[in-house]
Every structure is written in structure tokens, then in C-alpha cells.
């Protein structure tokens, strides 16, 4: 089992060695509604923690996907670009957005565990 951690902006990071697989949580996709477009960063771009990593657009609105950790973009999910509905159908599986090579893995400590994230969601009502 790889470790999953969550940000307060409802992104997740699945940690695979020094690679962070980033996407939006199930709660986030539920709130967004039907995803119709995603815009990905360039491969090789360096993205700082809390800065925009990608854009996700539902029928209603465009939202930013913030990088929960800093790193260099290794890969973006072409399948998601081709079929943005994957973000709704399998947000924490096939609907991942991008992979970063983490420049500061210690930033993971600022994120919530799955249990802590579930508790956090309860506080949102």
C-alpha cells in the first residue's frame, strides 16, 4: 500500500518513493460536479507548494489544482486529458492528474492522513 495524504484544498498525494502522484479527492470531484476539461502543466516544469499545478473545469466553473508539495513535473495523465470524466469516476485512481518528483519530501508532514482528512471533512458540514 502506498501512502496517501491530503491537503486542506482537497488535493491528494499518493507517495511512490520520491514521486508524488497528485489528484483531487473524491470530496472535491463531488463538489465540482461533472469535470469537462483539465489543463496540465508542462513536463519538466518546477511547481512550488501551494501554487497552481493544473486547472480543472466543471460544467459550472474553472478551479485550480494546487500542488500539495513542491517538485518537478515528471508526467501528466494523458488519459484524463482525453476523458476528463475520469476525475469524477475514479478521482483517486485512474483520474490522477500529474506526477511530481518531490524536491522537499518533508512537506508531506504538513498534509493530512486519510483518517485526519475524513475528520477534516466532517468539520466542513
Amino acid at each position, binding site marked *: 500500500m502506498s501512502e496517501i495524504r491530503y491537503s486542506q484544498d482537497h488535493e491528494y498525494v499518493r507517495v511512490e518513493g520520491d514521486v508524488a502522484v497528485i489528484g483531487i479527492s473524491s470530496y472535491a470531484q463531488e463538489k465540482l*460536479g*461533472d469535470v*469537462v*476539461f483539465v*489543463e496540465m502543466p508542462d513536463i519538466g516544469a518546477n511547481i512550488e507548494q501551494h501554487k497552481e499545478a493544473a*486547472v480543472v*473545469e*466543471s*460544467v*459550472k*466553473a*474553472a478551479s485550480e489544482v494546487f500542488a500539495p508539495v513542491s517538485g518537478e513535473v515528471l508526467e501528466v495523465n494523458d488519459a484524463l486529458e482525453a476523458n476528463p470524466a475520469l476525475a469524477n469516476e475514479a478521482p483517486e485512481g485512474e483520474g490522477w492528474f500529474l506526477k511530481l518528483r518531490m524536491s522537499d519530501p518533508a512537506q508531506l508532514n504538513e498534509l493530512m492522513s486519510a483518517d485526519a482528512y475524513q475528520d477534516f471533512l466532517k468539520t466542513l458540514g
Partner: protein
Amino acid sequence: MTDPTLPSLRTALHDAHVVLGARMVPFAGYDMPVQYADGILSEHNWTRTHAGLFDVSHMGQALLIGPSHGTVAAALETLVPADILNLKLGQQRYTQLLNADGGIIDDLMVTRPLDPGLDGTLFLVVNAARKAVDYAHMMDRLPGGIRLVPKDELALIALQGPEAAEVIAPHAPEAAALGFMSATSSTLDDVPCHISRSGYTGEDGFEISVAADAVEKVWSHLLSDARVKPIGLGARDSLRLEAGLCLYGHDIDTTTSPIEAQLAWSIQKRRREGGGFPGAARIQRELAEGPARVRVGLKPEGRAPAREGVDILNDGTVVGQITSGGFGPTVGGPIAMGYVPPHLARPGTALDLLVRGKPLPARVCHVPFVAPRYARKS
């Protein structure tokens, strides 16, 4: 404008929406369903293929009452550019309240009742967010003997889609016999109501005005038909955008004229020639010489939606803005409307849309984006 410090108003169907799993959001001062459990895409597609039921009770319904049709029509014609005088019994017409400069204060539906006994009454439906402005504007300007009577005790629901007529026929046969943009008093399962064949989706359909304290019965009867699903404001917006219909406060406002907004079709010949409405000089000039800008449809060539406020570029120069834009589920891609100078309004014209700092290619196209399927008079 809506005061964010005030609590949201609720329509008579509020609890019914919550039970149906609606996501409620503040809209024009009301707590309204933006979507139900199925989501906007499913609701949009259902309305295009079956029948969708919308609560639009937030909209303003009012009566304009005078001694005769001639006097009440003449009074309203001093405020709007449509031919109201020649409305037939039971005929509905789309028009705009105009300011002195020909800018649009609001757009509205005006219906002359079918019942000759109601001669001298017009039925108005205005936008929720403009109710207070519209009513004050009209009351200040109506001559003695003509009264505006807001009907806050009425709810309004819309049944829209290719199966809407089949659904309504057993409940109200006279409604199913209506032609597009006509209306009748009726009963729906013994509940008195006023039904027009009209809507805001580009589909055939009906708008049903009924007492708020009886609307839940009508709503639940219609919903009990397997062809009918509840549809929220999210799909209402994508449906109207595909149908090329203006949304007040976005595609039209007090700075846009009906000619700029490509609504000249709603100004009948007698009014164009005779004037006598606010801003007539500007509108007659724009009809003769062309307006400075016109509303067009735009299709981004990629997949990225271009939303309201996005700059429209021609050779790197800003020439206008998107006023409504998003994803068109039936089109299967992004669509938008916005204003450009007339020389750039020809369908096929290549322009760029500045989305998140990047110019994305787009082409001017005909609206509606999806061919309307309004009921033709049989």
C-alpha cells in the same frame, strides 16, 4: 442587487428539492437547486431527450391591469419596444424594459390572457434579480388607471423537453394543444394554473404558473411520470446557452441595446417605424446604420471552455469580451457568446480567446448552437 447580508428566500418547493437530493445554492436572493443527485450533464441530456422539470419560482410574476387592452398595452409600450397592442388573445411575446439610452433594464415575457373576460390585463414574467428594479421602474412611469400588481403568491415551474407535450397532455389537454408562445388558463389535476408554451432551453415545453401553496401537488404529479426528472439551475444555464438565449446581467445589461444583443427580431415593424419607447433614437439609428458591437456565438477550437469576462482578441488586440461561456453538453465541446465589432461578426471569422493568459483560437459561429425544437402551431 442582492444583499448578501440578508437570508436567502425560499421557494414553495424548497423542501421538495432537499428531499430530491438537490444541492442548494444562493441565486438572486433565493436558495435554489443548482443540481440534483444526477448532476448537471445528466440533467442537461435528460432535458434534451425526455422532459425536465424546473422550479423557476424565483422569477417575478406580475399583472399589469388597466381598463382595456388598448390602454394597458399603450402604457407598457412606453417602456418596451415590442408590439403589445397587437398581441392576440393568449399570445405571449418576449421584450425588454429599456432605459432612456436604449439599454436593457431587464428582459421579460408579456402575455395577453386568452380569456376575453380578462381584457385589460397583461401577465408579466421578469428576472428574479431585477424584480425590485423593474417594479419600481414601471410603477414610477405608469399612467393613472394602470396598476402593476406583483403576484408573489404564485410559483412558476417549467416542463421542458421533447416529451413535455406527451407528459402534460393527460393532465391538461388544452396546454398540449397550444402553439409556441401562446398561453391559456387551465387546470392541472384540478389545480388552477396558467400555462404557456415557452421556455428557456431551446426545447418544446411549458411554463406553469400556479399558486405557491398548490405547486407541490403539480410538481410531484409531473415528477411521478418516469419521463420527467427534476433539473437544476446548472443545466438550465447550459441548455439556454446552447439555445443562444441571453442571460440578464451577463449577455445583456443596462449598457447593451437590443440591437447590439441581436434581439431586433423582438421589435416588431410598427414599433421600429413608430418609435415611442425609451431609447428609440439609438435603436432606430442602430437598425439603420448598424450597432458598434454585436453579440455573436464563439466556438473555441480546443477543449478549454472560455468563460464570462474572457477577452476576445483579433490579431492580438482586444476587441470584446465573452459574456457567457462554458461547456455545451449537446454540442460536446466548449461554446460561448460575446460581443465583437460588426466587421468581425461574420460566422467563420477566426479570433482568439485569452484564457488564463493564453490566446486560444476560436471561430465566430451561428447561434443557437443546437437547433431549437420549439412547437410549431399545428
